[in-house]
C-alpha cells in the first residue's frame, strides 16, 4: 500500500487505543466473573471490596467438595468429545456425498437440515422426555451424546460441505481413476486435504456441545449431568452467593475459553463457516 503510506495521528495512536478499549470492554465481564470468584459471597456485593479484597479459594474448594464439580466436568468432556466424534463420523460421509456427487435435491436437503435447527426445542420437550423415559435412555450418556450430535449435525454438515467444495473435483476423480474406492477416497484424499477445515469444524462442534444447556439440563438428573446442569443448580436467587456462582461459572466456562484461545486460528476460520474467504 505504498501510496497511502502517510499515517494520520488517529491511525498511529487513536486506533490502537480505541481497539484496546473495545477489546478490554468485551473481555471485562469475563474478567469480572473470575475476579468475583475469588471473593467471599459477602465481599462480592460490598462496594468497598469492589477491587480491593482478600482473595480466597474457598469458592473453588467448596465447589469441588460439595458440588461434585469433577463429575459434571467429566460428563461434559465425555459427552462433548463423543458427540463431536459421532457427528463427524456421520457428517463427513454425508458432506462428501453432497459435495462431490450432488443431485438436484442436495441444496434443498442442506437447507432442510439447517431449518431443523430453527425448530423450538421447547415444542418437543415433552414428547422427548416421554420417549426417552419410556425407552430407558433418560439421564444416560448415550442419550446426551445422541442429542448433542443431532442438534449440531446440520451446522457441521454445512461447514464440512463448504470446505469439501473447495477441493477441486479433479483430485477426487483422479483418485477414482487411480483405483481408490469410496472409502479410499475419503481416507486417502478427502480427509488429508480438508484436515484444517475438519479440525475447525470439530472444534466448533465441541464448543457448541459443551455450551448446550437446554437438553442437557432437561434430559438428565445426575448420571449424565453436564456442567450446564451444575450452573442450573447454582442459579441462586438474585444477589446471593455471587462468589460461589462466579466460581462455578468460571470453572464451567474456563476450559472452553482457554481452548478457544489456543485454537484461535482454526476457530476464526471455522467460524466463518467456510463461506467467507
Amino acid at each position, binding site marked *: 500500500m505504498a501510496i497511502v503510506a502517510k499515517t494520520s495521528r488517529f491511525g498511529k495512536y487513536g486506533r490502537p487505543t480505541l481497539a484496546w478499549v473495545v477489546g478490554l470492554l468485551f473481555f471485562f465481564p469475563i474478567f469480572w466473573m473470575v475476579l468475583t470468584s475469588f471473593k467471599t459471597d459477602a465481599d462480592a456485593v460490598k462496594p468497598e471490596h469492589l477491587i480491593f479484597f482478600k482473595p480466597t479459594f474457598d469458592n473453588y474448594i467448596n465447589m469441588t467438595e460439595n458440588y461434585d464439580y469433577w463429575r459434571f466436568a467429566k460428563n461434559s468432556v465425555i459427552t462433548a468429545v463423543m458427540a463431536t466424534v459421532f457427528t463427524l463420523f456421520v457428517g463427513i460421509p454425508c458432506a462428501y456425498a453432497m459435495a462431490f456427487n450432488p443431485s438436484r435435491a442436495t441444496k434443498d436437503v442442506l437447507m432442510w437440515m439447517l431449518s431443523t435447527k430453527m425448530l423450538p426445542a421447547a415444542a418437543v420437550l415433552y414428547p422427548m422426555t416421554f420417549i426417552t423415559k419410556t425407552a430407558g435412555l433418560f439421564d444416560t450418556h448415550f442419550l446426551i451424546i445422541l442429542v448433542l450430535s443431532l442438534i449440531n449435525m446440520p451446522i457441521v454438515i454445512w461447514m464440512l460441505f463448504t470446505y469439501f467444495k473447495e477441493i477441486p473435483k479433479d483430485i477426487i476423480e483422479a483418485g477414482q481413476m487411480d483405483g481408490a474406492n469410496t472409502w479410499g477416497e475419503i481416507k486417502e484424499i478427502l480427509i488429508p486435504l480438508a484436515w484444517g477445515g475438519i479440525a475447525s469444524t470439530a472444534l466448533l462442534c465441541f464448543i457448541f456441545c459443551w455450551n448446550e444447556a437446554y437438553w442437557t439440563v432437561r434430559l438428565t438428573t445426575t448420571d449424565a449431568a453436564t456442567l450446564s446442569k451444575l450452573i442450573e443448580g447454582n442459579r441462586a436467587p438474585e444477589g446471593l452467593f455471587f462468589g460461589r456462582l462466579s466460581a462455578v*461459572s468460571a470453572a464451567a466456562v474456563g476450559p472452553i475459553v482457554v481452548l478457544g484461545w489456543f485454537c484461535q486460528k482454526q476457530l476464526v476460520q471455522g467460524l466463518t463457516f467456510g463461506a467467507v474467504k
Partner: protein
Amino acid sequence: MSDRKLPRLLQTPAVLLLLVWMLIPLGMTLYFSFIRYVLNSLRRPEWTTPSFSNWRGFGNYEFVLNSKDFLFAIQNSLFIVCSILFLTVILGVLIAVLINKTFPGQGIVRVLLISPFFVMPAVNAVLWINMILDPVLGLQGIAVGGINELIDGLKDAPLVGWFFGMWPELQPISFRATQTSAYAVIIMVTWQWTPFAVLIFMTSLQSEDQQQKEAAVLDGANTWSQFRFLTLPHLARPIAIVVMIQAIFHLSLYAEIEIVSRGNGNKNLPYLIGEFANNNIGAASATGIFAVILANIVAIFLLRMIGKTLME
C-alpha cells in the same frame, strides 16, 4: 451406476437421523396439539393421559390464539432477534474495520474480543443479570450508588455546591421488568455474538482487493467513499451469513430468556411454550406447531434468499 450410488447412499445416515429427530417429536407434538392433555387435573383426571378420546380439534389452537401472551410472544421474539441482528452487524462492522489494520497487540485484542463467544449461554445470562445489571448489587447498582454518593458529597462543597445541588438523584434501571428484561437479553446476546460478527467481517476484510483500493485512492476517493463504495459491498455476503446463522440460533433462544425473565412477563415463543408445558401440554404443543410454522416462514425467506448466494 453402482459406483455412483454408494457415495449418494452415504448421505442417508445423517438424513435419516435428522428425519427421525425431527419427525417423531413433531408427530407427537402434532398429536398432542389436537387433544386435551394436561399434566395435573383434579377435576378431569382422564385428561392426564394422552388419548384420542380427548380429541379437541383446533381447540388448543384457538385457546393459544386467544391468549394475550401469544401475540406478545411473537412480537417479542421478532423484536429481540431483529435488535440483536441489527446491533451485532453494526458493531461487528465497526469493530472489524477498527482492528483490521495491524497495531501493537492486535493478537491479544483479538483473543480478548473472541472470548465472549465461548461463554455458555446460561453463564452469560447469570453473569449479566446478577453481577453486572442488578440495580442494587450488580455493577450498575454500585456505579449508580457511587455517583449519587459523590454528588451528595459535592453538594456541600463551597462555591460549586449549588451547581451539584440541582442534580437529581440517579435511579438505577431495573432489568427485571417485562420490557427492560428484553433489553437485558438483547444486551447479553449482543455481547456474546458481536465477536462472531467481528471475526467473520475481519476474515472478509482481509480478502479485500487492495489494488482496487489503491485504484480508488488514485481516483480521488476519500476514506469514507472507500468504505461506502468498496468495503461495504464487499461485506454484503458475510453480513448475509452473520444474519442467517444468528437467526438460526436466536429464534430458539431460551436459556437467557428463562434466567432473565423468571415470570415477569417477558417471553418469546420458545419460552411461552415452556410456560404452557408446565401443565397444559395440549396448548404447549399447539404453540409449538405455531413456532414451527414461524420457523419455516423465516426459513423460507431467509434460507432461500441467502442460501442461494451461499451455494455458489
